[in-house]
């Protein structure tokens, strides 16, 4: 059904989006948890940082990543000399750019799940001798994890389509950073490859719809669980 080229592009996309979710999930959980707290100093700062990728142009995010993590930057240089890791123009770099762009979506879904949890349950846990850290692992996460999963799936589906930040930070390297949207863009810019672009667009659409349906199902399951 799919040509080897298309399979290659799809697998690059899945790999980039998958790694993006893995990178951002722990950070997103920490941010979501902090934002679900009633009030603390610096909350609006945390809130702003979490939502920034939503309003910044993706190209700007890619450019900032180049400035911060590119081979010429202090951090990028250190990563290269100490670990031999290069981020710019690699699949890892594409994953990081995707992670940053999908971050607000993920934080939002997880935060809603944290906020939907009955605070009375945490009181009940604390009078059974569960301290704050214990409650986080034994109550907060298990009660919210269907929502966490839904957030991860939404971020994954959105990550499949990330364009601007990826092409700026990781460029369009076939078999390495050429994800679905990058391949569609390349095909559209090459005369006589409209049918290739159209097939890739269909694949992209199918992947996005599957992701959204899955996320919706997980969210419904999460609600049922918390209502019990």
């Amino acid at each position, binding site marked *: 059904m799919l040509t080897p080229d298309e399979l290659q592009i799809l697998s690059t996309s899945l790999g980039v989006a998958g790694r993006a979710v893995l990178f951002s999930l722990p950070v997103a959980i920490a941010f979501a948890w902090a934002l679900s707290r009633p009030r603390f100093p610096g909350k609006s700062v945390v809130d702003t940082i979490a939502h920034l990728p939503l309003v910044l142009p993706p190209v700007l995010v890619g450019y900032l990543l180049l400035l911060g993590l590119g081979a010429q930057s202090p951090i990028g240089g250190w990563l290269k000399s100490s670990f031999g890791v290069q981020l710019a123009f690699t699949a890892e770099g594409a994953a990081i750019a995707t992670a940053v762009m999908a971050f607000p979506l993920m934080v939002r879904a997880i935060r809603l799940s944290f906020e939907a949890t009955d605070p009375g349950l945490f009181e*009940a*846990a*604390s*009078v*059974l*001798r*569960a*301290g704050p850290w214990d409650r986080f692992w034994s*109550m907060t996460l*298990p009660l919210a994890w269907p929502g966490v999963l839904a957030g991860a799936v939404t971020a994954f589906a959105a990550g499949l389509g990330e364009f601007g930040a990826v092409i700026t930070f990781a460029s369009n390297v076939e078999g390495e950073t050429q994800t679905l949207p990058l391949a569609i863009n390349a095909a559209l810019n090459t005369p006589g490859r409209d049918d290739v672009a159209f097939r890739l667009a269909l694949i992209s659409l199918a992947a996005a719809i599957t992701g959204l349906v899955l996320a919706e199902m997980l969210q419904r399951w999460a609600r049922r669980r918390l209502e019990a």
Partner: protein
Amino acid sequence: MTLELREVVVRRGAFRLAADLEVAADGVTVVFGPSGSGKSSLLATIAGLSRLEAGRLSLHGHVLEDARKAVRVPAHARGIGLVFQDARLFPHLTVRGNLEYAEHRRPAVRNAPIVIEIARRLEFEDLLDRPVRNLSGGERSRIALARAIVSAPELLLLDEPFAALDGRRRRDFLALLRELSNEQSLPMVVVTHSIDDAAELANDVIAMRDGRVIAFGAAAAVMSRPEFAGLLDRRDLGARVPADAVAGGAVEGVWVRADSVLLASERPRGISARHVWEGRIDAITREDARGVLVSLATEAGYILSRITPEALADLQLEQGKQAWAVVKAHAL
């Protein structure tokens, strides 16, 4: 084990709780008062779920919280259990999982019944592997109680634990609470707005109204105070009779409502009523055109009877005169 609250003030939204009390907290202490009087807030304060705005809270001489010195032992380190009115079972765990949650966090030095033992005792053994949704209110109450017992607290607080129960189940649960308190040497503080539950359970009573503690101390003393009567509905007015006066078995006392007590000016003969107490009339209070409250000092304590003004005139009852209080066994 002494529970002491000194000039405690707690604010929850617009509600203000003020408490200054000291109770023995051995056996069962009942917190009694109408709804909205601050009973649940008092429990939340003792458990450490509400922060003191002022005052000091200590248990057994050990300071748990002192607003002035900024001392505050967090709820999870107090060793005080709390059974919530709405049970608050953990929805992501099975019944067994809920009990094990408590068991795994119990200090090794504290003895407590194992999960299966307590489940058998509270008759929900067959529910152990079920998820907690779709359980009945009564089942949830029993599981919440079991979870708290398994956690082996030093003091157990219960917020209206009978709310979801009625009739025979309620009486069984009441008896069970007393037994558990004795067997596990576990002092309990029980919130209720039922005067019958209060009389049956209480060794000590904390009476509350409008966010304030209006009386505290031994049940017999507190429940005969005039300000305690002020907490009751007209039809609940009555007197606490100690259990031994009515051969009451597992209960501490019985609440005898004024409406269920007959008065006789001569020793009654040939009647079916099982309880006849001889005494002297201590006070006669006219309530309104329909009722007169007569207080009789008997060997079982004071008994209150509500009679009509016509009956008062017919029997020629007066303060200091001898009279007999008659109560059907089934009215208790």
